[in-house]
């Protein structure tokens, strides 16, 4: 029997195409593949925030898109809207707003959220209509698949997939183990 294992290392290095919080010099880089409409990602959101505030410059956080568009009807547009926000330098503001308002991600509401965080709403509407950022979202997705992402949220700590739970204690312990 020939057996092959999914590659559980990050195949796409963190780079200019990424949305990054924290310095490149941080000893730990946490990469999340997430879906804005996925309730589990919604649960992971405050956990990551808490770890970021506790660890400060010791943690670099990267978010990549992994929308399951056939299960979550708003996930694709939410991801594209966050990318549109990135074009206006407000990716993280939009990212946070989307997770904090996860229960209502209709197009209208996404555009309202965009206005609230100070983004030109018309540009977001246009980008959604033209699917300007679909390709970028898709690239994140396929890169994730090649790295063995099989659902959301999927975390990689310093390039190695975190297969354990992402509850606060477990994720914190795994990160601290790499921070030494």
């Amino acid at each position, binding site marked *: *029997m*020939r*057996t*092959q*294992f*999914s*590659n*559980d*290392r990050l195949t796409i290095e963190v780079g200019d195409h990424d949305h990054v919080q924290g310095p490149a010099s941080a000893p730990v880089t946490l990469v999340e593949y997430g879906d804005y409409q996925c309730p589990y990602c919604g649960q992971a959101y405050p956990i990551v925030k808490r770890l970021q505030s506790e660890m400060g410059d010791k943690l670099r956080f990267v978010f990549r898109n992994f929308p*399951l*568009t*056939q*299960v979550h009807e708003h996930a694709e547009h939410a991801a594209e809207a966050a990318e549109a926000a990135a074009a206006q330098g407000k990716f993280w503001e939009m990212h946070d707003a989307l997770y904090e308002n996860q229960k209502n991600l209709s197009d209208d509401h996404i555009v309202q959220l965009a206005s609230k965080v100070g983004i030109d709403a018309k540009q977001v509407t246009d980008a959604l209509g033209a699917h300007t950022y679909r390709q970028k979202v898709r690239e994140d*997705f*396929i890169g994730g*698949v*090649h*790295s*063995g*992402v*099989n*659902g959301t949220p999927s975390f990689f700590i310093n390039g*190695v997939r975190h*297969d354990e739970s992402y509850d606060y204690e477990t994720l914190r312990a795994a990160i601290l183990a790499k921070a030494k």
Partner: protein
Amino acid sequence: MIFQLIYETESITLIPMVWDRISNLRFGFKKLFVMYYIYQETNNKVFYFHAFIYTKGNLPRRTLYSQNPISSQQRGRTMTHTYGNDPSQHGKVLQPGIAAPDFTLESSPTDKVTLSQYRGRPVVLVFYPADWSPVCGDQLALYNELIPDFEQYQAQVIGISVDGVWSHQEFAKARNLHYPLLADFHPKGEVAKRYGVYSEPEGISDRALFVIDKDGIIAWSYIANPDENPGAAGILDALDAIAQKEKQGS
């Protein structure tokens, strides 16, 4: 002996879990064949060993064989594959290079699908244990998202389980799945058995992937832990390898 060694490695949390699952089986088997895979992250090597477990009353007795020497330095995930009563089934999981057995199964209350109808295109055959279970849902949802990518290889993805057509129909509707789910329902598990991925004790198929090339030959196969979502990296790599091979051949 080997069990002891594994037990000392960092797989410590996984092996007992696997062992519990085996020893909790109450199907009256006399001899159970078990295969463990140990994946070593550091050098991408796969080690495996297999075991025959004999039951005596409710207490399993085990004999273990190792394929590779296993040191306590090894770490990683374990995979299991269990076969039912018949240890002679060992080795019957269809391997690359073998012609994929043809079959015809119902894909809906009114339609049938025959594997060989896809001759000329690669086929991704996804055996999964059951409709509605959470891991299956995620796994099948992932392949659903990847249909455009499979299409770049002209590949057709097909799901297959022992569930009946009506279950498949509702499941596909609920998850918005855009590829056929075949009912290996009657005689139950017949196709899974022919591919060597039927679990007799549980009466369901294993979670197994086969990538079949355009000539109907198995190019790649993978058996996952029932609780593991195997993702799609291996499938895409296999499809890519087929495409590369064809390019070289032409």
